[in-house]
């Protein structure tokens, strides 16, 4: 059970939120938007392996 992934994702979320706040304050809305998007994409890349792992293990266990 690797709980590290949860911490990693939470850290990415906090960093993205802080960056978003700073960039918004300095008047760079487009950069803030890009940061948000990049954070979401990075997190999705991290979880896509886990999801495929889940589906594989369900498939092998239940002989689908």
């Amino acid at each position: 059970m690797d709980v590290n992934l949860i911490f990693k994702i939470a850290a990415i979320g906090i960093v993205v939120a802080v960056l978003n706040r700073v960039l918004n304050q300095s008047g760079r809305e487009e950069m803030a938007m890009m940061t948000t998007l990049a954070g979401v994409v990075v997190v999705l890349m991290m979880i896509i392996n886990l999801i495929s792992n889940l589906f594989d293990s369900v498939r092998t266990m239940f002989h689908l």
Partner: protein
Amino acid sequence: MDIMKIVAAGIIATILAVLLRGERPEIAVVISIVTGLVIFVFLINKLNSVMSVLKYFAGKANIDILYFSTILKVIAIAYITEFGAQICRDAGEGAIAAKVELAGKVLIMVIAIPILAALMDIMLQIIP
């Protein structure tokens, strides 16, 4: 104690998700997905041994392998559907969650049709 670990992970993930929900709701949804996946991957090893015991007894009781694998498939579909629908509902998309559940019900019905047909055959044989 494994249950302690799981409860601790769940509480920590809940705190993180609540922390992030105000600022970045999409990351909070991802955290809840990952928590569910981590817990399930942890549990699947334990479930595997139970499955092998069940399979052993099914073989001993001469249950038709078609029926047994159908039951397993139904359980798998129900679990996966519930997982996806819960995540959709957590994120506030109740309509999508309802559609996912509908799809799960229909697919379970499609898988269960052979058993239903066998049952109907038996009933028609009994009733002259």
